[in-house]
């Protein structure tokens, strides 16, 4: 009898604990509006992933500090993808099946593509923030990007070279992989459409460490401008060899090249290189200047990949704006209704990026900042809308 009483008491305590816990969870669920963030926090890409997560955390904290969403807190559930598609699938499965979030953010093209079927099958909205593969716009109804895809900046730089800089003959040198091939085609088409002629169109092997042969062919074609569609690892070397072989033409490239390391690696040989940036710099916006200053003050340095962190910082503001509308109109918090409201709102006013529109064709409009190396520093050459 004593044993039975003891078991009953224990069961009651346990039952109360479960009910209590459920009550707490329920209260928490009512007080917070949740979304997921699946980014690389470990592995080789963690250097960038961690800074991007920090930027998103700052965004969430700012929203909550200003009163949250109609009095409710915005909660971000962070999981690690290691920039690996398999780990990304595990993280997103957990966000969708266990955490039951209506929307999640992720990045890195391979991860964005790998988790897209989970988003589409479960009708949960996936926001890609930072990946730029052109395929992302075609991954399904529930996959959207808030980051401009590859064609926007390359088209802008080709058009600017032909129409504003008056360059008539271009040579295109590109790495022989998917991003290089597609980027080179975009440049060739845009430059030709703008009235220019592509006089040399040369691919190079992704494992190449010497480009003399290709550059001699470019030299023989005598172009006015050379567009290099390479990676951050090989583009500075191609430019160095170009200059060593006496090719002094203006070099254009795209957003991957826009980093301070290029100037450090090339010194004066970097002068005249034109690259693109898809987010405002500290000089363009007081809000960005303040944001960069905060990094220096709190972290002791500028963020790795500043433009990407700006997009991550502002992504929670997009989610908060949609949540706010859904809350106000008492729309159920599902991925399906989130997507519907996202498309209904379309345009957002963001703290760092400014006015921002997500298109129905799953792309975004963004101004392109053309940056040029002048006197050993990146400075803005033009702003192309």
């Amino acid at each position: 009898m004593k044993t039975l009483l003891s078991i009953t008491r224990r069961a009651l305590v346990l039952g109360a604990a479960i009910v209590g816990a459920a009550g707490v969870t329920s209260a928490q669920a009512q007080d917070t509006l949740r979304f997921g963030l699946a980014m690389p926090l470990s592995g080789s890409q963690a250097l960038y992933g961690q800074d991007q997560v920090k930027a998103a955390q700052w965004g969430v904290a700012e929203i909550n500090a200003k009163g949250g969403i109609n009095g409710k807190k915005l909660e971000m559930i962070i999981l690690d993808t290691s920039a690996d598609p398999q780990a990304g699938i595990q993280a997103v499965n957990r966000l969708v099946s266990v955490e039951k979030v209506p929307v999640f953010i992720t990045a890195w093209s391979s991860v964005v593509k790998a988790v897209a079927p989970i988003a589409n099958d479960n009708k949960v909205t996936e926001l890609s923030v930072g990946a730029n593969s052109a395929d992302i716009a075609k991954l399904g109804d529930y996959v959207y990007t808030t980051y401009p895809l590859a064609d926007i900046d390359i088209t802008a730089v080709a058009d600017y070279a032909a129409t504003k800089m008056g360059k008539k003959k271009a040579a295109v040198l590109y790495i022989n992989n998917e991003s290089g091939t597609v980027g080179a085609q975009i440049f060739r088409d845009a430059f030709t459409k703008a009235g220019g002629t592509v006089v040399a169109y040369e691919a190079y092997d992704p494992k190449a460490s010497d480009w003399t042969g290709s550059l001699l062919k470019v030299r023989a074609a005598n172009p006015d401008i050379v567009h290099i569609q390479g990676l951050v690892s090989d583009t500075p070397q191609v430019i160095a060899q170009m200059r060593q072989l006496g090719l002094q033409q203006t070099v254009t490239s795209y957003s991957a090249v826009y980093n301070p390391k290029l100037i450090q690696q090339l010194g004066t040989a970097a002068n005249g290189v034109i690259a693109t940036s898809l987010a405002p710099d500290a000089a363009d916006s007081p809000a960005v200047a303040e944001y960069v200053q905060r990094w220096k003050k709190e972290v002791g340095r500028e963020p790795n990949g500043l433009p990407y962190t700006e997009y991550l910082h502002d992504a929670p503001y997009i989610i908060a704006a949609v949540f706010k509308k859904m809350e106000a109109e008492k729309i159920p918090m599902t991925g399906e209704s989130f997507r519907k409201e996202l498309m209904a709102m379309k345009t957002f006013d963001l703290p760092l990026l400014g006015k921002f529109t997500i298109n129905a064709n799953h792309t975004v409009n963004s101004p392109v900042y053309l940056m040029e190396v002048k006197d050993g520093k990146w400075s803005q050459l033009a702003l192309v809308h």
Partner: protein
Amino acid sequence: MLSFGVIAQILWTSLATSSYFVLSAMAFAVVLKVNRLFNFAQAAVMTVAFYAAYTLVGLLGLPGRAGFVGALVASLVLSAAIEILGLRVLRRRGASTMFVFIFTLMISELVAYLAMLIYGTWPATVFPSLFWPATLVGPVAVSGWDVPAVATMLAVCAALYAFLRLMRPGQFMLAVADNPDLAELYGIAKDRVYLITMLIAGALGAVAMFLYGTRAQVQPTTSIDLLLFAIAASVIGGIGNIWGAALTAFVLALLQNASVLFIPSEWQGFLLYIVLFLAIVLFPQGVHFRKISQLFHRLFPRRLDNTHPKDA
């Protein structure tokens, strides 16, 4: 397009850039000849050599000489550790050739992964600047990197030749390479010779990687790509033929650079594998330059008669 200037430029740049290919091919070939081992761990040694130099020069701001010495020391320490703690133990346990090969492969992957964890995948160079000023010598642009690289390669080749021919440890290496059991009967300590060979290969790999890292950007898997080139050169140059591997590495570098002038540039990367495939199919024992010469003389006997009347 094919002017004297273009041909001269291709020849000169190929000679300069072949320096790291030649040295890494010799490193691979010397271990293959003496230790009879397909040493994939050479990639690990080269990776460690580069990141030692990068840490000292690129991160700590020490002069290039300190980086070179650091690369050399790091590669020698790792080479000795691989031989003493790994390969020697496996030999004593009678491990099969395949098992030893897998061990070296595992070491190279392990070190690449560790380098990724520590340094990330952002490409790095020994010196912060990649740009070497160039001087025009006639129609040929000669960069500030080219001459020291070619001079280093030639000096190292000469030193290795002298070591193998004139010094006793070098002669012991050749004896062990010819017949390890007979060499042991003559009192040559095989284990010691194997260790010396690994150290020489480590030093060659360190010099190769230092040269590479002062001209091009390096990622943790770059040395694995360089090793594939070294393997191709060793196979085509005749397995166990150090100088054949070195010569083949130069020819392959020249072929890759010059090929762009004749074929679409996207085929440039395939060329190495096409040459390797043909070499394995047509010359399974490697290309013996002496045999090619004999074949040439057999095919063109008259020319032989004309050239060397006394031999007829």
